[in-house]
């Protein structure tokens, strides 16, 4: 069952075609990564999903149909730029924004206080928003997205400006939400965090989808024919290996065309002068793939 289906959408502003052709689907209960370099069309796509912009072409189905007032109440959104009433007290601001999603004031106050406690902001609840640090505002904005207990959570750069302790906290909350059956669309530039959290992804560049699918599959697809080996002793001569790079106590073996990691493993297991401690197929990080794809596209 898909929570979100984006089907061949396109959007132009004056002379700029921000989104040319984007399609992807997000499954219920998963953490889905929406990636792309700056200006790729991610925010425009998110705004079309949220019905803030109408697509010129294509269609979008959210939580089982087109956007409606009921659907709006089931979506939580953390925008890339912070959007809080700066002159309001933090608690009042949270309660008002939750009220806009239909949460009764008493209930909203209770939930907000619980979240403020958890995000270590309770003592600032009576401060005006503009008196809070950037990181605090970021956490407050994250609370706004969660307060009405949405079924679909769209978070655009949730880790921006946060220290490692708070990054861990956000990660924890996102995992909890997914475990509770909520669908999460995560757009971020910290690829190591995306790789850690998300199961599937779409990468947009120049308004088009350039990568789409499970992250593990994408990484395998981009894997060079190489293995990483750690162990003691002499590797000796390996017939199917073209080069050996040593770095930090491990060796990266580049394989000949047609050679498989299994063949190398068999050869190594027969070598009495070398004890294998770790053997893995060398997969590129999401970060490497991102840079590679973005650069290839720009050429």
């Amino acid at each position, binding site marked *: 069952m898909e929570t979100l289906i984006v089907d061949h959408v396109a959007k132009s502003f004056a002379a700029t075609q921000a989104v040319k052709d984007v399609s992807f689907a997000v499954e219920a209960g998963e953490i889905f990564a929406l990636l792309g370099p700056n200006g790729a069309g991610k925010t425009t796509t998110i705004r079309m999903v949220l019905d*803030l912009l109408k697509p010129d072409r294509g269609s979008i189905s959210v939580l089982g149909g087109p956007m409606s007032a009921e659907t709006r109440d089931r979506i939580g*959104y953390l925008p890339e730029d912070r*959007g*809080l*009433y700066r002159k309001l007290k933090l608690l009042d601001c949270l309660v008002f924004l939750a009220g*806009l999603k*239909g949460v009764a004031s008493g209930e909203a106050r209770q939930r907000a206080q619980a979240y403020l406690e958890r995000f270590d902001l309770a003592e600032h609840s009576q401060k005006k928003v503009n008196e809070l640090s950037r990181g605090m505002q970021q956490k407050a904005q994250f609370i706004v997205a969660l307060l009405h207990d949405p079924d679909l959570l769209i978070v655009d750069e949730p880790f921006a400006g946060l220290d490692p302790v708070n990054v861990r906290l956000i990660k924890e909350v996102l995992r909890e939400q997914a475990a509770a059956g909520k669908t999460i669309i995560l757009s971020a530039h910290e690829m190591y965090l995306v790789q850690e959290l998300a199961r599937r992804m779409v990468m947009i560049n120049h308004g088009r989808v350039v990568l789409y699918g499970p992250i593990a599959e994408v990484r395998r697809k981009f894997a060079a024919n190489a293995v990483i080996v750690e162990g003691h002793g002499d590797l000796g001569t390996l017939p199917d290996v073209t080069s050996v790079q040593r770095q930090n106590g491990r060796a990266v073996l580049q394989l000949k065309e047609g050679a498989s990691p299994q063949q190398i493993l068999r050869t190594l297991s027969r070598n009495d002068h070398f004890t294998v401690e770790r053997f893995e197929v060398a997969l590129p990080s999401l970060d490497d793939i991102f840079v590679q794809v973005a650069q290839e596209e720009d050429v």
Partner: protein
Amino acid sequence: MQRLLYIAKFEYFRHLRRRMFLLTTFGVPLLLVAGFVLLFTALVLTNQPESAIGYVDQADVIPADAEALLPATETPLPVPLRAYPDEAAAQEAFVAGDIAAYVVIPPDYLDSGRVTAYGAEELSMEGEQSLHTLLRAGLLEDATPQVIARAFDPIETLRRSTLDGGRTIVGGGIWFVLLPYLFGMLFLVATFSSSSYLLQAIVEEKENRTMEIVVTSVNPSQLIAGKTLGLGALGLTQALVWLLFGALLAGVGAIFFEPLRTFNLPGDILLIALLAFIPGYLLFAGLMIGIGAMVSSQQEGQQMASMLTLSGMLPFILNFVFVTNPNGALAVGLSLFPLSAPLALVMRLPLAQVPFWQILLSLGLLTAGAVLVVLAVGRIFRLGMLHYGKPIRPGELVRLLRTS
């Protein structure tokens, strides 16, 4: 509807608590009241009516029964006047404390009109009034009661009529001039303050990106309607507070100043004013939202808004046109042009017999203008609300109106 009212309530109370709002709403009238009180206190302190004033009538103009000559409509002398045969007797009474001052009416009074007061730096208003009344009564000794009555009140009723003989205003002349201005002031306060708060709120939400959060919860029409309602109520609150202060001042003032007692508000003008104010506010509110959606900073918004405000205030600036020729081409034109219509129409109504068709056309054009603006704004708001960084150019605006 529930969300619309939720937004209206939020906007109302958010702005109501702002220091600037409280300062203008209560500060301005309080300042006026303070000025009024100060003036009044100074007047009371410096004007103490005498217990009695003596007079020495060397010109022989005041007969012994002068007071009996006063017409029935005239109030008795506020300060008693006592006659003395000569200055020495008056001086003696003054020293004895029987009188607070005395005046000498010299033999050449009829030619010179000169009277000298002794014993006080100046006579109180009441003392002087008593002297005037008694002298006038004495001078009219030989006249018939009718002449005496007319001499004391030469114009008992003044009917004022417009040049074309239409509307007739009876009583308080000051209102003839002031009424249109009071209407205008009320319109200006209610409309311009509300719509400028509206502009401020829209631009502020764009600047701090709250707009993006808000419109993921409610649709743009609910947002616009909620804000317009909430801030309209705020402007009305401000106008009501001012009106209340005004009524209070007028009420207190009426005790002391005769013209304030003659004030009466014509019901038909009030009705037409109300019919003009509602679309008038919607027109300005819509335009301000439109500006708010197009610009990217408060400053830019204020610059554009000031041009609109100026058009709305044009009848105020050209007020001489309304006083001298309320049915002239310019006055009629201004009352038909939607931006200046609300003010121009209410300014013309007390001054001239405005043809019914003109009232209808003015209200019709104003309402049509308001509806058109509200519809157009609904269209451009969706894209404009997320338009950060640079303002929307006019060409782009036309394209938006065509395509969105």
